[in-house]
């Protein structure tokens, strides 16, 4: 039996209740499609549809990406199934006033981790139990202590290389980028109505998928997510070219953690370094 084997039934009951009581207009959760290797998003409008809902080890997606979308918002209040890692993204959306708390109903799942084998992010998960949700389903899971050095291992592996090797490594990786923007589209925090990459008067970032353009795009993406990214790993999962985007995000998160003692998405009320001013801030470089 998988770590998440028993949640489906209670999840369906919870979803059926909020739908039948008309507390929400839609519940966004995960369903199974036999043709797919992972559990895919489903959008339920009626209580009788809840049999389509599942929660298993293959619920990778961060459904928070759908919360700012106009076609979802016009369905009414949004019920959404969130794992702890997804909740962190919801917290950032709340913190940044993209969504209002009263417009969402959070159905938290106590998640023991996803992936077979389990994803690296799950082995250092600090939010098995998503706090602050309206409904929580699943058995309590013992929260293991996670040490600071365990959080940034992917970034650490690359930092350990000499500078010229790192440059060589990233040139090789970023040369592969085909500019499909799957990383941006899947990111709950890339919600800009018009991305800077799409601003063409003037053209700030070259759209051509040559190394120059790809570097500009990927550095832009990394900087715009610095101090905001919650490390859900969706960008890296969906990249059709296998670019290790998670390592870039981790590096940025590490810098923010070290300089400001801040980790994004643990609360909707948190004061983020880039939106607060403090004379205590260190002034090393641009971060």
């Amino acid at each position, binding site marked *: 039996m998988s770590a998440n084997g028993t949640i489906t039934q209670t999840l369906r009951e919870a979803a059926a209740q909020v739908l039948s009581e008309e507390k929400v207009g839609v519940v966004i959760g995960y369903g199974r*499609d036999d*043709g*797919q290797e*992972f559990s*895919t*998003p489903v*959008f339920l409008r009626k209580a009788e549809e809840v049999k389509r809902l599942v929660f298993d080890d293959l619920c990778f*997606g961060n459904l928070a*990406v*759908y919360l700012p979308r*106009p*076609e*979802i918002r016009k369905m009414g209040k949004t019920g959404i199934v969130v794992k702890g890692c997804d909740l962190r993204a919801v917290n950032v959306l709340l913190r940044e006033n993209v969504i209002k708390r009263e417009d969402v109903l959070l159905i938290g799942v106590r998640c023991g981790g996803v992936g077979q084998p389990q994803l690296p992010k799950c082995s250092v998960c600090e939010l098995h139990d998503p706090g602050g949700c309206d409904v929580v389903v699943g058995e309590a899971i013992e929260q293991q202590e996670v040490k600071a050095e365990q959080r940034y291992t992917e970034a650490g592996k690359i930092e350990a290389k000499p500078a010229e090797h790192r440059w060589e490594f990233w040139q090789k990786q970023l040369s592969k980028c*085909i*500019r*499909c*923007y*799957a990383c*941006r*589209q*899947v990111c709950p925090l890339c919600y800009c109505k*018009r991305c800077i990459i*799409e601003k063409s008067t003037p*053209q700030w970032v*070259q*759209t*051509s*998928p*040559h190394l120059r353009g790809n570097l500009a795009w990927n550095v832009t993406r990394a900087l715009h997510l610095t101090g905001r990214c919650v490390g859900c790993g*969706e960008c890296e*999962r*969906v990249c*059709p070219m*296998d670019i290790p985007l998670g390592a870039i995000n981790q590096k940025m998160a590490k810098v923010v953690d070290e300089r400001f003692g801040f980790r994004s998405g643990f609360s909707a009320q948190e004061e983020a370094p880039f939106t607060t001013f403090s004379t205590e801030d260190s002034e090393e470089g641009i971060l």
Partner: protein
Amino acid sequence: MGEQKLYQASANWLKSAVDALCAAGIEVLAPTQSESGKVDLARVTSSEQVIQSYPNTAFPLKRLFLPMSEVLLEYEKGEEGDVELGPKSAPAKELVILGCRPCDAAALEMLDKVFQWDYSDVPYQEKRDRTTVVSLACSEPSPECFCTSVGGSPQGSEQSDVLVFGGANSAALMQINTAKGEKFIERLADTVTPAPEGTKLPEPTELEQKFDPQKVKGWLDENFESNFWVENSLGCLGCGTCSYLCPTCHCFDIVDEASWNRGQRRRNWDCCSFALFTLHASGHNPRPDQAARYRQRLMHKFKVFPERFGRVACVGCGRCLKNCAVGQNLLADLADIESR
């Protein structure tokens, strides 16, 4: 071609072909495996780099003829005000593609139709003319495959100069379809021999037909406005993965990249799933939401393209449904349409 020309070769034909062609100084693309496990056609210089057993390559052939980014022209202004234009075209070198699958070869027909339509696209055609396509018939289609639903076959020979049966674990049989194919066989010298008279091609690999494109088109003809488009695109995130991995999607954008005294005009891939794709300078967008953009993608492939060119713009490779971030399943959507 009237009489079918068949040759036979050893199970190791792919490696022998790579070595023979490389020794003759010909550029060769053959299946290789990357560190992350992806199989793709890559330039090889020795048969040691080549793998012989794989379901399909991660990427289709499109980018070899319509590169992701291609310099159409470049210029540099001299101090005297003189302008030098480029790129200077080098004589096209012969290229042989080894080991693509029949669906990917068949997709070249759709690209040919577009790029030779009312105007023969020079950069595309140059690359097409210099290339010989040697495909490998499928004996074990993958779960996402549906070539038989869109007029193809696991052993289809469309646009393949040579179609190879078997290999890897058994002797190979080569079906020669074009003059380019004959030239390829000549280069392999004594590693191939004419198949004995009466040699038959292997029995076709079975692959169930999963929908009927005619029925799908019948519904599309009547349902430009339908709630289907909204409901079935709710999950779509609007990235370009499906289009960019599609063997037949061919939309592009033309951009100028310039500095003070020099610049380039490039043709880059573009995608109808992007919000910017149809955004007008006025701010109006005729495809204002993902539902409209998703409809465009399906309509173009299964209604507009057949009306204009006589066949659907899909070869059933299944890359779109296999690689979609949220599991948008084209096959399930088409089956859904057919059942309506």
